[in-house]
């Protein structure tokens, strides 16, 4: 209503589709394509075309803000630099690596002995070296969260996965529950925090039973259940529920750091075996896929190969009347050609038919304002956008929109209202033209 906490609404998750089959490990595609770009900006290749690379060998670096290394995800030969599709909907340069199927490891990859005596600086150095970015979707370098000087009290692992259709985090946790707990343990140590909390959705009770047997070794770690609503995976929502506090800028203001569950699992490998970020879980699902399922694949794998392994597209699917979505159905992006490559932020590819009816006008029911978790009134922002009133957009606080997509979701008239708010945010950033 008016003074309530951020609430959210229940959305039919349709997660059962891709949960039927266990996660499949698919480690040896013939080619991988490592994008020479990360969320924070472009990368510089450090290997030349024709050179041999091993698994885990550094092949590109980012300098300046967000400095980090990027490693090869297979062993083989660099055969060229090509333009390929990225999940942001653009074509970018990528290193093409041909697999030699020998799986030679970089000499750095070996069990780490001094795990218990690592300092904060060593942890952060490991994160940088491994190129660890958030695997939830934003792709922000993880170490930047930890170099804060503010005292950190709680590290929260976000295992909520509130987007419909997606099950990659869920099945990744069921596959490696111990690594998740270990990863969180190391995160807590990195931040010198007092406790670690793993937040999951009450819809996914299996997570609780899978994790409980490992918790007794780590007394600082506890579990926390949230409701099956969207956007329960939003940082602010989780922090409000776990700590009862709220913030305006970054969570570290109130002593909290939030990481995705897959990031924690990968971090456990980084700390204990020096394996950099070279593979990630991904869900291939949607009504347009014959047998939806989850994969654990090297970064750079072609999505079309995974779709192939799912049995291809469903029969009768007309591509021009279907969406090919990179990311979740609420916040993802439609890709026009099914030639996508797995990158570090791509958690899912969804293929589903679109509904192309004629829709009525906005009738002004106000459901978008009712559901907005940031208490915005999207219809007013759209009006301000149409009249290019920057001051009004600003006082309507369009910047606090988290692009969860709920307003468009609930709209009975199919108004592209989320898109309007996003454009209003863009206009704020660039200034009206």
């Amino acid at each position, binding site marked *: 209503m008016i003074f309530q906490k951020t609430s959210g609404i229940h959305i039919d998750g349709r997660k059962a589709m891709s949960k039927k089959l266990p996660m499949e490990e698919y480690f040896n595609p013939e080619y991988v394509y490592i994008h020479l770009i990360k969320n924070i900006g472009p990368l510089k290749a450090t290997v030349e075309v024709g050179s041999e690379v091993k698994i885990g060998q550094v092949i590109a670096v980012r300098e300046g803000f967000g400095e980090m290394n990027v490693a090869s995800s297979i062993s083989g030969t660099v055969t060229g630099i090509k333009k390929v599709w990225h999940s942001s909907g653009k074509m970018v340069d990528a290193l093409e690596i041909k697999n030699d199927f020998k799986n030679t490891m970089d000499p750095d990859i070996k069990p780490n002995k001094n795990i218990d005596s690592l300092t904060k600086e060593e942890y952060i150095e490991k994160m940088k070296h491994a190129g660890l970015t958030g695997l939830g979707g934003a792709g922000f370098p993880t170490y930047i969260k930890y170099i804060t000087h503010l005292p950190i009290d709680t590290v929260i692992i976000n295992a909520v996965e509130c987007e419909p259709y997606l099950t990659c985090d869920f099945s990744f946790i069921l596959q490696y529950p111990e690594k998740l707990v270990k990863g969180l343990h190391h995160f807590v140590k990195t931040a010198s925090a007092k406790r670690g909390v793993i937040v999951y959705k009450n819809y996914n009770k299996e997570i609780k039973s899978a994790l409980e047997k490992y918790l007794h070794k780590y007394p600082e770690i506890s579990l926390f259940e949230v409701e099956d609503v969207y956007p329960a995976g939003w940082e602010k929502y989780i922090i409000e529920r776990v700590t009862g506090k709220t913030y305006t800028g970054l969570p570290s203001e109130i002593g909290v750091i939030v990481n995705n569950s897959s990031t924690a699992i990968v971090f456990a490998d980084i700390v204990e075996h020096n394996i950099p970020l070279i593979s990630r879980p991904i869900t291939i699902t949607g009504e347009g896929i014959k047998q939806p399922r989850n994969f654990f694949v090297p970064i750079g794998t072609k999505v079309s190969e995974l779709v192939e392994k799912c049995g291809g597209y469903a029969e009768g699917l007309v591509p021009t009347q279907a969406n090919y979505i990179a990311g979740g159905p609420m*916040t993802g992006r439609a890709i026009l050609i099914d030639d996508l490559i797995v990158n570090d932020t791509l958690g899912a590819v969804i293929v589903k038919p679109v509904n192309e009816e004629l829709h009525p006008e906005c009738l002004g029911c106000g459901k978008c304002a009712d559901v907005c978790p940031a*208490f915005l*009134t999207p219809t007013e922002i759209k009006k301000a956008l149409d009249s290019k009133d920057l001051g009004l957009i600003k006082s309507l606080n369009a910047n606090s929109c988290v692009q969860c997509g709920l307003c468009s979701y609930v709209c009975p008239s199919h108004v592209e209202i989320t898109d309007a708010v996003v454009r209003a945010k863009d206009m704020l950033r660039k200034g009206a033209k």
Partner: protein
Amino acid sequence: MARFANGKAPYLRMADQPNKGTSIIMRDFIIGLTPVILFAWYKNGIAVYIDGNTDFLGLVYPLFFILAGAFSSLLMEALYFFITDKEARALKPLMKKLSLSYALIPGLILALMLPMYTPIWVLMFGTFIGNIIGKMIFGGFGHNIWNPALLGYAVIKFTFMQLINANGGYYNPSETVFLFDATAGATPLAVLSSASFNYDAIVKPFGTLWTFFVGMTPGGIGETSVLVMLFSYLWLSFRKVIKWTTPLIYVGAVFFLSWIVGAMNGDAGIWFPLYSILSGGLMYGAVFMITEPVTTPKNPLGKVYFALMLAVLTVLFRFVGNLPEGVGTSIIVMNIFALPIDKYTAIIRANRWKKPALPQILTLAAILLVIGIYSVIKAGKVYTAIILPILHLGGVI
């Protein structure tokens, strides 16, 4: 490689599920109106027939009247589309346009508000004003400023009332037989504007408060029954067609303000505020008009403020302006302010009541307080009821 369709996030829409789109909302709205239509037919047709005060024609006439309103509303928009839009000159695209513009509804609502003896051509004139002037020339469904039905009603009320009264007025044949002598053909609120605040003068001629609750009092053919309106209210709230809080706040605020006004006028007990919310189509307005989505604020805070402001204006028009049409007039006035209210409350909400929204908070609060206090004082006749006696006591006058 295949080419896929473009689209905007989110790719999942509630409206794609069966039973969720705008058309379903409008269907539910018409279902919500059904009990009102049936009651109107019962009260003005069936019951009168049973009393033996009318013939078969009179039995079906109320139903015919309401359907005529709906049909005429449809006709007006069809004509408008036919004239203005070349593509809509064949049957199929025309039907599509009409179904996306929900043309039936304003006519239905209008007919239910009118006295039974309104000539059909006046009803059609009302739908012309409502649908064409009030809705289509603003840009059609979703763009109108005024509630179309209410605009048509206001124009009829201010231009054709004499004609309607000459034609038979508000009283159906039974009421003419049983009530006319005692009340001289006036509706309850018309009685209020001429009588003092006295149960015997205001309520007694028409029965008891229970009569008001059930709705067997003279008035527009469908707007009198609070009981039936409650059913509609529950249904519409349950189906989430309307926001359940808005009518509640409006009715509650009118009750509270009327209670103060009654108390300041000396005599009134609890019957007075009850009478105030049970009469004059207030419930009809509360359930079907102040919740009408297009012409009211869109965000929840705006809806609350809108309802409070409406309550104040209703009281102002009823007890100060002595207009029998307090509800309708206040809604027409407030419809204009729906846009600024929406803007101001959206700013307040987005800033979560913090400092950047202070000017907006103060403006809205000041307007509400000033008009509210003015209405109550003025309606309470504070000068004659309180200040004058004090002055007399002091020997000043």
